């Protein structure tokens, strides 16, 4: 079950690392995989070897203390770190390495969308926020645009709240609504994978639970990778969980495994709330 069966055991019997290959436990195909991924900020290595596989139509959570590299890792997946950090290694998206200079990052980012920590709608109307990316791709037919707005708002569970005010400024929405609008905006270009970087950290508990419901719905059609520092959130919504510490993935397994019987002592300490 272990990718690296030669992982050394520490003195007290705990594994130093425990990275599980989900395809051994799950029938879902792997849509995204990183091999030997290293991320450098200047001379400073922020990610040392992140090797993970993400199965289709599952929610995978990346957890770990602040500065553990989980956000840096996530942002590397759709090349949002271009020009910010140096990323080496392979990022295999359905078998294609997208971490190559000749890859069209714009087309790749359409397939691997991203939602950020802070809700970041444009200061445009709700309608224009959602159609922004479609218009940039040359879609002008009003009916197509209208349909895309309705579909993606429904998927993001925002339609009922805003259907009568699509021309209203997106900035007039509440924080939770803005974040769901950002999800709808990302869905409008029909991505394959959705990356979420602590999407609920700026939201109140009610908005957070609404967002989580939305994500569980979206799981049926999308592969979701979510960074969170809220362990309960990871436990509630994710199928797989990766534990990051100091730029390394120490453990990756089914979420229930990580939270009930972690194989690595640091994971245990973290999920037990001993540090973080």
């Amino acid at each position, binding site marked *: 079950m272990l990718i690296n069966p030669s992982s050394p055991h520490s003195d007290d019997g705990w594994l130093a690392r425990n990275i599980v290959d989900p395809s051994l436990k799950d029938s879902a195909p792997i849509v995204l995989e990183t091999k030997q991924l290293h991320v450098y900020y200047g001379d400073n290595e922020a990610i040392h070897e992140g090797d993970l596989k993400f199965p289709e139509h599952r929610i995978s959570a990346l957890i770990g203390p602040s500065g553990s590299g989980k956000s840096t890792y996530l942002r590397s997946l759709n090349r949002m770190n271009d020009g910010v950090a140096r990323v080496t290694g392979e990022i295999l998206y359905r078998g294609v390495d997208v971490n190559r200079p000749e890859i069209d990052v714009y087309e790749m980012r359409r397939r691997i969308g991203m939602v950020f920590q802070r809700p970041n709608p444009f*200061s445009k109307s709700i309608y224009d926020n959602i159609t922004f990316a479609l218009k940039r*791709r040359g879609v002008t037919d009003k009916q197509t645009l209208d349909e895309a707005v309705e579909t993606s708002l429904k998927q993001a569970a925002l339609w009922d709240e805003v259907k009568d005010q699509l021309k209203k400024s997106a900035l007039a929405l509440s924080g939770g609504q803005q974040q769901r609008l*950002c999800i709808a905006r990302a869905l409008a270009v029909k991505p394959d994978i959705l990356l979420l970087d602590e999407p609920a950290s700026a939201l109140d508990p009610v908005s957070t639970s609404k967002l989580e419901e939305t994500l569980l719905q979206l799981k049926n059609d999308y592969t979701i990778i979510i960074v969170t520092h809220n362990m309960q959130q990871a436990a509630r919504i994710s199928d797989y969980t990766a534990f990051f510490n100091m730029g390394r993935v120490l453990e990756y397994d089914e979420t229930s495994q990580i939270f009930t019987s972690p194989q690595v002592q640091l994971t245990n300490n973290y999920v037990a709330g001993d540090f973080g």
Partner: protein
Amino acid sequence: MNNNLQKQLLKRSKAAKLERLGKTVSFLALMLITLTVFAIIIFVASKGLSTFFTNHVNLMDFLTGKNWNPSVTNSKGQPEVGALPMISGSFVVTILSALLATPFAIGTAIFMNEISPHRGAKLLQPVIELLVGIPSVVYGFIGLTVVVPAVRSVFGGSGFGILAGTFVLFVMILPTVTSMSVDALRSVPRYYREAALALGATQWQTIYKVVLRAATPGMLTAIVFGMARAFGEALAVQMVIGNAALMPTSLVSPASTLTSVLTTGIGNTVMGSLQNNALWSLALVLLVMSLIFNLVIRMIGRKGAMSK
């Protein structure tokens, strides 16, 4: 014991005294500057308005008259103080130079801030700061020896005129407009760019549709600042515009601006005479215009703050 405490608390400490001194000094500095500004406005206004109240020139004749020759009286027995040639000359060079400078400034700003921030900051920042520091007489001198002959050989005429003035002002306001445009772009939050890029928009689409839109109020402020500078620039313009108080009919015929007539005329008139008062009226027009520019900048700023 209690008495002693009261004594200590009531006695002003050294720090408290120093604080009071500091407050007084900074308040006096503020008062001095405010007083100076008001004194200048009142002085220019009283001098400038005496053309109309002491010399009984009709305000409309002043603003719309096309003949400027204060020492000559016209058929109505009124002195010839039509300021329209200078007013229109000032506006034409200002607007033309702003129109010319804006695309260059925005292009440079986009390159410096969006496309190549490292090289932009290293190379262009010092260049722009240097351009701001060059005295206007140097610009005027270069205009006189390079721009005027070039205009003459390309467009004909004497070379002196609005076109030469426009070129000189273009170079003079370019650094101001550029550096303020860079500030405007820099103030667009990073998450705007990230949002667009993460949706698969290209960098150019992000700049054009998101960054520039968000920076529009700041850009407009930059352009108006440049216009205010162009409107008020005297020396360099005076050296290349030809200084003929005629209605501008072509871009290459000699013309004049409010500032060029002021700088050439102010030494040749006697304080209190009509000729002198008429020049003060031109100065008043300049002052009112710069106040209007300031108002416009504030209005844009307020609108920008609301839409954010």
